[in-house]
């Protein structure tokens, strides 16, 4: 390994990006990539415009992160800030989902669904639309700045910018009523943060999708490093079957000397179509996002030459080893279902079921009581002992609900509020809590002199057809010893 006389290398501290001009290719993975792109971009751009009727008291946007009112709407689900664990649960599921996908099919996220990949792909299609395919792009890049080149660059970058702006513009639609915000945005009435967000996202999309491209995956993104650690010899990755391809040789050579060369004809099509400009024949690398376009390119060449497809293919390293030793390839299902993927699936599913159960059984009505502690009690002129409470009634339904708060326990205790006069003090209290609101009440509870310190309950009941309720136990302080 150790070379005694290190070759004198010019020391390069940094290196200019080598532009990548991926060639257009067609094949099953390319078509799958089209499908994923249409799906992800479609979901991203269209979702904020879907409507969902929630009645007169809640917004009718199907997916809405209402930061101003601290509500998150997703179709029939409405989440309050204190229920954020549902979102946390979804994020954990997304994380474990990524582990699952990685352990089963390698860096499929990177290759198909990552926004950086999807937008880079989109921008590369813009390149082909304006500049032509790989060779034309390379010629234009090398050409001097003539009027034609300036026009083409201007046009291309304008389209870049429009896509970037559309991307940033779609993002803010998730945070406010989309039609209203669109009108506000163009009439200059939207919040400054909306313009700032669109500006930042336009700039990052333009820069990362238009120019940085594979540099993001290779140098900036932590995810490839993490995924590398999660891959093992049982994971599907895009692999060049070197034992079949090497030594490389032209068709002529193969005809002259059958058996002297492998299947690879060194046509470099796999490199030409690679969106990160990597040569997969050098082995697995962080540059390979496993988009499988090289498989499409190689399959096409192999078909033309009448050789079996799959010189470059999705395979596990284990399969590669057995194939090399002369074994038959295992069915793909064997590669997908092994212990690790099954464990990930089980954990992922368990969290999902837990979330669904929690969602189905959560309470939409709630009482929370906070007692004033300074002073713990005060004595009234007739000797009554008064304790003060802040009672919060929560109505999570999108309609006003009549409710009743009752004192349970505390003999002789009655209460009044800022709205209910003292001379009408009673043991129960009728309140209508506005739709989708927390109603804070100041409640003053008095009990006759001589009442011992004790605990009692505030009982909340919904007085409508749906019913339901909640109880909160609180202290009543008074002079003297607790019973």
């Amino acid at each position, binding site marked *: *390994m*150790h*070379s005694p006389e*290190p*070759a004198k*290398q010019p*020391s*390069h*501290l*940094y*290196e*200019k*990006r080598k532009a990548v001009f991926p060639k257009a290719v067609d094949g099953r993975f390319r078509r799958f990539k089209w499908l994923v792109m249409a799906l992800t971009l479609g979901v991203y751009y269209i979702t904020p415009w879907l409507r969902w009727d929630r009645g007169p008291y809640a917004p009718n946007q199907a997916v809405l992160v209402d930061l101003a009112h601290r509500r998150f709407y997703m179709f029939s689900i409405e989440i309050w800030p204190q229920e954020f664990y549902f979102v946390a649960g979804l994020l954990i599921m997304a994380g474990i989902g990524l582990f699952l996908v990685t352990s089963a099919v390698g860096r499929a996220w990177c290759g198909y669904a990552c926004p950086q990949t999807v937008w880079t792909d989109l921008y590369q299609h813009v390149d082909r639309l304006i500049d032509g395919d790989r060779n034309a792009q390379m010629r234009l890049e090398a050409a001097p700045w003539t009027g034609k080149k300036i026009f083409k660059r201007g046009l291309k970058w304008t389209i870049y910018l429009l896509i970037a702006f559309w991307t940033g513009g779609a993002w803010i639609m998730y945070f406010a009523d989309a039609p209203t915000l669109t009108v506000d945005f163009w009439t200059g009435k939207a919040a400054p943060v909306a313009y700032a967000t669109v500006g930042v996202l336009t700039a990052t999309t333009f820069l990362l999708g238009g120019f*940085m491209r594979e*540099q993001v995956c290779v*140098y900036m993104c932590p995810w490839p490093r993490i995924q590398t650690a999660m891959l093992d010899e049982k994971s599907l990755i895009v692999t060049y079957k070197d034992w079949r391809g090497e030594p490389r040789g032209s068709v002529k050579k193969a005809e002259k000397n059958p058996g002297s060369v492998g299947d690879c004809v060194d046509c470099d099509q796999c490199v030409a179509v690679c969106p990160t400009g990597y040569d997969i024949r050098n082995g697995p690398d962080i540059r390979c996002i496993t988009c499988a376009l090289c498989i499409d390119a190689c399959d096409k060449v192999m078909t033309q030459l009448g050789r079996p497809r799959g010189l470059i293919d999705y395979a596990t390293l284990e399969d590669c080893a057995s194939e090399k030793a002369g074994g038959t390839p295992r069915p793909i299902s064997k590669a997908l279902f092994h212990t690790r993927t099954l464990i990930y699936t089980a954990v992922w599913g368990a969290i999902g079921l837990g979330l669904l159960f929690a969602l189905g059984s959560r309470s939409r009505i709630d009482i929370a009581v906070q007692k*004033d*502690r*300074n*002073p713990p009690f*005060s*004595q*009234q*002129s*007739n*000797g009554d002992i*008064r304790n*003060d409470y802040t009672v919060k009634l929560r109505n999570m339904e999108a309609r006003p609900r009549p409710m009743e708060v009752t004192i349970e326990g505390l003999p002789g205790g009655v209460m009044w509020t*800022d*709205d209910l006069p*003292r001379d009408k003090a009673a043991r129960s209290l009728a309140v209508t809590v506005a739709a989708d609101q927390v109603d804070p009440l*100041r409640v*003053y509870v008095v009990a006759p*002199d001589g009442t011992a310190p004790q605990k009692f309950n505030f009982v909340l009941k919904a007085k409508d057809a749906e019913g339901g309720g909640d109880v909160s136990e609180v202290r009543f302080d008074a002079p003297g010893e607790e019973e």
Partner: protein
Amino acid sequence: MANKRIDEPTGVETVGHEWDGIEELNNPLPRWWVWTTYLTIIFAIGYMIVYPAIPLLHSGTEGLWGWSSRGQLAAELKAANEAKGETLAAIAAAPIETIAPGSDLYNKAVAGGKAAFRQNCVQCHGAGAAGNPGYPSLKDDDWLWGGNVQEIETTIAHGIRSPDDAATRSSLMPSFGRDGILAPAQVNDVASYVLSLSGKAPNDAAAQSGAAIFTANCAVCHGNDAKGSRAFGAPNLTDAVWLYGGSHDKVVASVTNAHAGVMPAWGAKLDPVTIKMLALYVHSLGGGEDFVEAPTTPAAESGNAQP
């Protein structure tokens, strides 16, 4: 750096360090990365020029933009005060009894009053407004000088027995024992009588003898029924609230030496809007009385003119 070598599979030079057989390749940085580093350096230099950055012996460089955290605080306070201006003007313009509980203006005024209370009133009345011996609780329904918003506002503005305010609320209870108006035994009897009114002492011989003494000496201010008079700030002696303590000894002490609690006239120290907000806050503590419009001014005056 003697261990630098070319890594065979990649053809890249190593950096020359080795940790348990692990070596690092000396791959070149991407050029944009280097640019980004230079940009951050330029930014840092610019930052040091326009912002305070370099520590000197006594202070530090001030920076071209003259920014300071104190200056920012001052600007933010100014902005906050300007933002409050409209609300304060609205509170100033509205007569206190017209600010309806539950209204937006009322809620803001109560919040403002709470803040002012913390700053000016808690020293005597306590953070929870529960009072201390000699300093009344503001949470109960017992008011010496009146418990509607207007009366509370007057009390706060002019104080009680405040020497600096001509319009202050004032009254003076004689020191019946100390000045020899009543003999110690009489003081004892009248204390027994007073305590018997609220059931804190038996209606025994001492109490019965005290009744006559009360009528002769105390009823002029505290009333024949001992329910007090707000015109003089004379407390109701039949209820459960005892400002200076409700034990027999304490009542004897009160009759002997009398009390004349003083509250400053806050009108001299606080602006009228703050006093109005304080009054609304104190009134909101749960014992406030409803404001009832006096029928006509002369009638109200004659009604109060008790000897």
